[in-house]
């Protein structure tokens, strides 16, 4: 059945949201913002006394992950903006996530405290030290319940390994290592070791003038811990196997779709630049996002994608204006649904697009406070490309290019999606299922 999406919540953040990520169970949803803050939302458990609140996401924890820094050597600011958050698989009661800005990755532990010890021997209830000579008997402290407190503490700081701006982090399926990628290099880390990382990809040319291509995204394979992919600004994806050599400069597979000569223009390379690459949950496919489309690739076929979905083809005739106002460099992300049957990505005017791969249907929806009442289904949107504009359609020239949806996330198991529109986080869920 086709899902009907309804707005469950809109949460206003203090700053522009720069990353959104569900954890592996979907119970927690983390957002990072331009101000270096991380806000984690938790899904409410089923509660008989408040049946409607099941499934609602409420703020669970907020903390300052990164602070602005100044690089004195280069006289440049290092932005505190959180570029990516990735959750570690949960191994005990605490939750762990990696958050990164342009230069430094941090491992955060988020833990709950709902008990407090009372009845210490050496100090009073209010914390004052007791005079040892006055203690005549010993007692065992008792744990008493207290109001839930969620604490976030930095456990590891992985710094000084990246000259260029970090664009991706990806936790390995071995749960022990992770990779971080910047414009020219990819490093492999062990989660326990902060003073060392291994460089596994280096595309920096000996002569910087020869630089024509940069790394745009990287990700580990979800099941094969020796395999990862990285995408480039030239629209290519390289799959590497870490078993083949220590420095994975030679790829095992090279994914590139031949260019369509009839649509060649000066902007061809820019719009072919891949802004995001994501493996499917199954590990059989991967998805790439370039400026105008989303492509699904079968890992066994390098010559061309198995699916190409147009996100906003109507922008093709506007590329020069989009180049002028820099929108052509916007980096849109993409994501898979839990079952890999659908994919989602953002667009302009607070539109986002969903493609049902099985039914071969797509829909354009809008994240907007004005246009959606809570629990009412979202109405599909349509962009009019020319000729007569029908009622409820919006013309290309009326699109607001400042309202861009770059970051979206899909719950790993259910039809719940999180969409970041500038300062606002929208959570939609499927009413029907």
């Amino acid at each position, binding site marked *: 059945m086709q899902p009907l999406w309804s707005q469950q919540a809109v949460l206003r953040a203090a700053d522009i949201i720069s990353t959104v990520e569900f954890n592996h169970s979907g119970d927690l949803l983390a957002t990072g913002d331009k101000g270096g803050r991380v806000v984690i939302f938790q899904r409410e458990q089923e509660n008989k006394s408040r049946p409607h609140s099941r499934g609602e996401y409420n703020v669970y924890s907020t903390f300052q992950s990164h602070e602005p820094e100044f690089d004195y*050597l*280069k*006289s*440049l*600011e290092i*932005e505190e903006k959180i570029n990516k958050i990735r959750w570690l698989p949960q191994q005990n009661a605490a939750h762990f996530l990696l958050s990164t800005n*342009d230069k430094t990755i941090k491992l955060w532990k988020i833990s709950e405290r709902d008990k407090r010890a009372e009845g210490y021997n050496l100090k009073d209830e209010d914390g004052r030290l007791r005079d040892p000579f006055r203690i005549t008997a010993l007692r065992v402290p008792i744990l008493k319940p207290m109001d839930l407190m969620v604490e976030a503490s930095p456990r590891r700081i992985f710094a000084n390994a990246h*000259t*260029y*701006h970090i664009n991706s982090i990806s936790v390995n399926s071995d749960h022990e290592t992770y990779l971080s990628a910047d*414009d*020219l290099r990819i490093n492999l880390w062990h989660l326990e070791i902060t003073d060392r990382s291994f460089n596994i990809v280096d595309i920096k040319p000996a*002569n*910087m*003038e*020869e*630089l*024509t*291509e*940069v790394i*745009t995204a990287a990700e580990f394979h979800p099941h094969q811990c020796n395999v990862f992919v990285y995408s480039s*600004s030239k629209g290519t994806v390289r799959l590497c196997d870490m078993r083949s050599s220590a420095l994975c400069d030679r790829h095992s597979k090279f994914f590139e779709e031949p260019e369509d000569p*009839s649509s*060649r*223009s*000066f*902007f061809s*390379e*820019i719009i072919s*630049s891949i802004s995001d690459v994501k493996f499917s949950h199954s590990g059989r496919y991967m998805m790439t996002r370039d400026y105008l489309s989303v492509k699904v690739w079968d890992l066994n076929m390098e010559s061309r994608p198995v699916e190409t979905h147009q996100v906003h083809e109507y922008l*093709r*005739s*506007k*590329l*020069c*204006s989009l*180049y*002028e106002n*820099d929108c052509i*460099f916007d980096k849109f992300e993409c994501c898979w649904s839990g079952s890999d049957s659908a994919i989602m990505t953002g667009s302009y005017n607070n539109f986002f697009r969903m493609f049902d791969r099985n039914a071969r249907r797509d829909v354009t929806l809008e994240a907007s406070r004005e246009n959606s009442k809570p629990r009412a289904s979202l109405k599909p949107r349509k962009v009019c490309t020319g000729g007569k504009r029908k009622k409820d359609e919006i013309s290309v020239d009326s699109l607001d290019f400042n309202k861009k949806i770059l970051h979206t996330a899909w719950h790993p198991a259910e039809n719940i999606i999180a969409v970041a529109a500038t300062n606002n986080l929208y959570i939609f869920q499927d009413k029907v299922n």
Partner: protein
Amino acid sequence: MGTMFARGLKRKSPEDGEDMEGGLAGARATPSYSLQRQSLLDMSLVKLQLCHMLVEPNLCRSVLIANTVRQIQEEMSQDGTWRVVAPQAAGRAPLDRLVSTDILCRSVREQEGERPAPDVGDGHTADLVPGLAVVPSAQALRSPQSSLWEVDSSRENRGGFQKSLDQIFETLENKTSGSVEELFADVDSSYYDLDAVLTGMVGSTPSAHASGLQAFASAAAPPPSSSCRSDLGELDHAVEILVET
């Protein structure tokens, strides 16, 4: 830009008659296409010049823009439409200086090495921060900027300026060292070196600032973006700092 770019800028193909008049292969040389292409080139070069002073520029964006410039230059060279600048009065800094940041450094170094910079008031200021030398001479550069590359009718002068223009794209075609590093600052191997700054050496990041200042100083060409203007205030401030060091 308006309707001229309504359909984007396409390479002319024989069948594509939609955008331009006529459907011939030679239509690439039509005035409207050339104008569009030139405009795109100018826009791209300005984008490369405008670096953020406080935060590192986005490397991916810079690479993509530089690649676009290279593509345009290749096509213009193939077309034979690559034109050179008419020689200006003696003492005027070459117009190619306005083109991109790396060229600014290159031109200044040439001035020091080959001839005393005539557009600098004092001989000795050329020994100090070269970037500053450019600042007062901004007026000299305010020549007709409607077209950076005008048709050169005199062939004798072609050689000298062709060389300068070649240098612009040499840097992008990686034949010479040091210039494009301004665009893709290799920060992990360079250290702050006051001497390097004062001698105008490229490759160290502080001189990236100096050359960035040059870019702003010499942006007498009408820039499409108005952010140039607001940066001139920063320019004054930064120039003060350099002078005091």
